[in-house]
């Protein structure tokens, strides 16, 4: 029996190192079967530096305090009809994407970290991953609770987990995490723990939570604050994993570099949707996507890679392309959703004249030249009573699963097409980044569940798009989708606000 009062250091040692055991009569490699197949060499797990020393009782105490505060604010938000204080009902459409596209990723992160929290041979790493798994579970729950209030007043939030599994554009975030979880535990940690949590999550959380604040959404802001201290721990873990792998064996360096190249590329593709939320969906703008990218990726990420240079790690491949893309991707993405507004689970709209001018100001080199004309065309068609909805299904990229909407960065009116032949079949990609990921592991990606092809194969109901939306996606057709103008969301808002 341990002494009654242990200090934190002792407690932590007992919780982690002393809970481990040696394998005297069983084969250790059978207890940790996932540890070797990725080619990563771990010579000494005892060199693992715990990124944070949190014991389970401290963890519970700390999280419980945060929960109490968080739920008090959710209650106040609901009782005071907080939904009426948002800037504009268009804002809620960003929440619809968040709940259907991002919150289920928190759940996938929970599943992934639970797996690594079992499979790593080092006990310190296992405990850190297990705690992150519980954090992620908490995040999905608190996000669902933060947004459940909106579900009472706005359309499109009613069936988020069903939608995440089926809707065409949600296959983008879903397949991103499926790819990471189907990899080995070390790749998962570089993908999610490092590339995503350490570098890219800032681009999701900081601008998005500021966006919530700018638009009067106190429920989401409070959730963001409540998650922030967890995120800080996750970032520390991500960085520790990278350093540990690089210090353990020099043979790990090229493997880790390959994963960094892959997951930064996949991450930037995934963030395309955030770029469009920031530039087009927040009625009160925080900053442009380009500005956010410069602050959180180029400056913060640049400093990080300078630090990692001493291990022989360089900037992620395609960094030059990524730098050019910040001028384009948000515009290309919102246009895609606008033109597919009949098949989206949220509303889309033409930016107001003030917003178009804001975009011109923020993107002086590209917006007026390439993107304003699209909105002029959309306005012209809308004025004629022919709101533009695309009438055929788009070609998708086999890797990121995004419609092939990205252009050549040096020729922004030309779609970027890449392809590859494997075992006699042709596969298409939006970029060199996605192409190279396929080339490295084609046998993995021949299994991509591409929504357009699944519809053609008859696996999603049909035959018409509307049948797929209603029966397979379980959307309320004519209510959840179509333009913001004339939507039930807009009608209700006007009634609440007494606007004709």
């Amino acid at each position, binding site marked *: 029996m341990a002494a009654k009062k242990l200090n934190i250091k002792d407690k932590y040692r007992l919780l982690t190192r002393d809970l481990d055991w040696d394998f005297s009569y069983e084969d250790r490699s059978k207890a940790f*079967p*996932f540890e070797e*197949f*990725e*080619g990563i060499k771990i010579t000494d797990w005892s060199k693992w530096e715990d990124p944070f020393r949190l014991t389970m009782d401290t963890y519970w105490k700390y999280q419980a305090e945060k929960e109490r505060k968080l739920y008090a604010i959710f209650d106040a938000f609901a009782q005071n009809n907080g939904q009426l204080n948002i800037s504009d009902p268009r804002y809620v459409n960003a929440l619809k994407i968040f709940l259907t596209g991002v919150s289920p990723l928190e759940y996938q992160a929970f599943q992934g970290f639970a797996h690594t929290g079992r499979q790593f041979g080092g006990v310190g790493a296992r405990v850190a991953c297990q705690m992150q798994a519980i954090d992620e579970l908490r995040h999905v729950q608190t996000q669902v609770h933060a947004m459940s209030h909106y579900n009472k007043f706005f359309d499109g939030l009613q069936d988020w987990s069903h939608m995440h599994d089926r809707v065409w554009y949600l296959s983008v975030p879903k397949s991103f995490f499926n790819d990471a979880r189907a*990899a*080995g535990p070390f*790749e998962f940690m570089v993908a999610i723990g490092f590339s995503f949590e350490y570098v890219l999550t800032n681009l999701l959380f900081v601008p998005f939570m500021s966006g919530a604040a700018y638009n009067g959404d106190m429920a989401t802001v409070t959730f963001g604050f409540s998650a922030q201290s967890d995120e800080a721990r996750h970032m520390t873990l991500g960085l520790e994993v990278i350093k540990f792998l690089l210090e353990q064996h020099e043979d790990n360096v090229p493997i880790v570099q390959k994963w960094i190249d892959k997951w930064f590329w996949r991450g930037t593709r995934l963030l395309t949707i955030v770029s469009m939320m920031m530039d087009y969906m927040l009625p009160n703008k925080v900053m442009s996507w380009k500005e956010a990218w410069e602050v959180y990726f180029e400056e913060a990420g640049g400093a990080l890679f300078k630090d990692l240079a001493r291990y022989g790690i360089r900037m992620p491949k395609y960094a030059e392309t990524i730098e050019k893309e910040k001028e384009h991707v948000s515009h*290309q993405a919102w*246009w*895609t959703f606008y*033109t*597919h507004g009949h098949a989206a689970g949220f509303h889309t709209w033409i930016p107001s004249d003030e917003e178009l001018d804001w975009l011109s100001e923020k993107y002086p080199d590209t917006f007026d*030249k*390439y993107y304003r*004309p*699209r909105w*002029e*065309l959309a306005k012209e068609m809308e004025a004629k009573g022919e709101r*533009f909805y*695309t*009438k*055929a*299904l*788009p*070609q*998708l990229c086999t890797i990121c699963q995004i*419609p*092939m*909407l990205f*252009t050549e960065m040096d020729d*922004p*009116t*030309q*779609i970027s*097409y890449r*392809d590859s032949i494997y*075992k006699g*079949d*042709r*596969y*298409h990609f939006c970029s060199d980044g996605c192409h190279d990921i396929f080339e490295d*592991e*084609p*046998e*993995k*990606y*021949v*299994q*991509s*569940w*591409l929504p*357009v*092809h*699944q519809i*053609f*194969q*008859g696996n999603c109901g049909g035959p018409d798009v509307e049948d797929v939306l209603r029966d397979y996606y379980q959307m309320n057709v004519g209510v959840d989708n179509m333009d913001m103008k004339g939507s039930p969301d807009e009608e209700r808002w006007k009634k609440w606000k007494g606007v004709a």
Partner: protein
Amino acid sequence: MPVQAITPDYVGDIKDRIENFNGNQVVYVGWDHHLMFCAAFAYPLPPETPFRTLLEEVMPEGFSLHPEWEKIDWSTATWMLDSKPFAPQLDVALKDQGIGHKSLLRFQTPELKGYQNAGV
């Protein structure tokens, strides 16, 4: 190694093999420098479909929304099939002129610069 898997000699299930499309093959068609359409369109078509049917019966529904569609002079439009120059034969089946499953057809109309001459 075609995949880094814990299972030795892991082989993936090819989700988009032609056999899964109920007698159809997928053909993609894109109009270069016309980004009113955000991406190339995907069509499930019987491989025996003559090119004329694709051009005259399948493509117009989606493409004709473009203000320049009516102005296309098909005698001067150029085509590419899977990144190579291509001269379509109108009355020949797709499969008999090299347009296979998941082939990409692109057409160019250099005299048409898109809405407001902006490649839209």
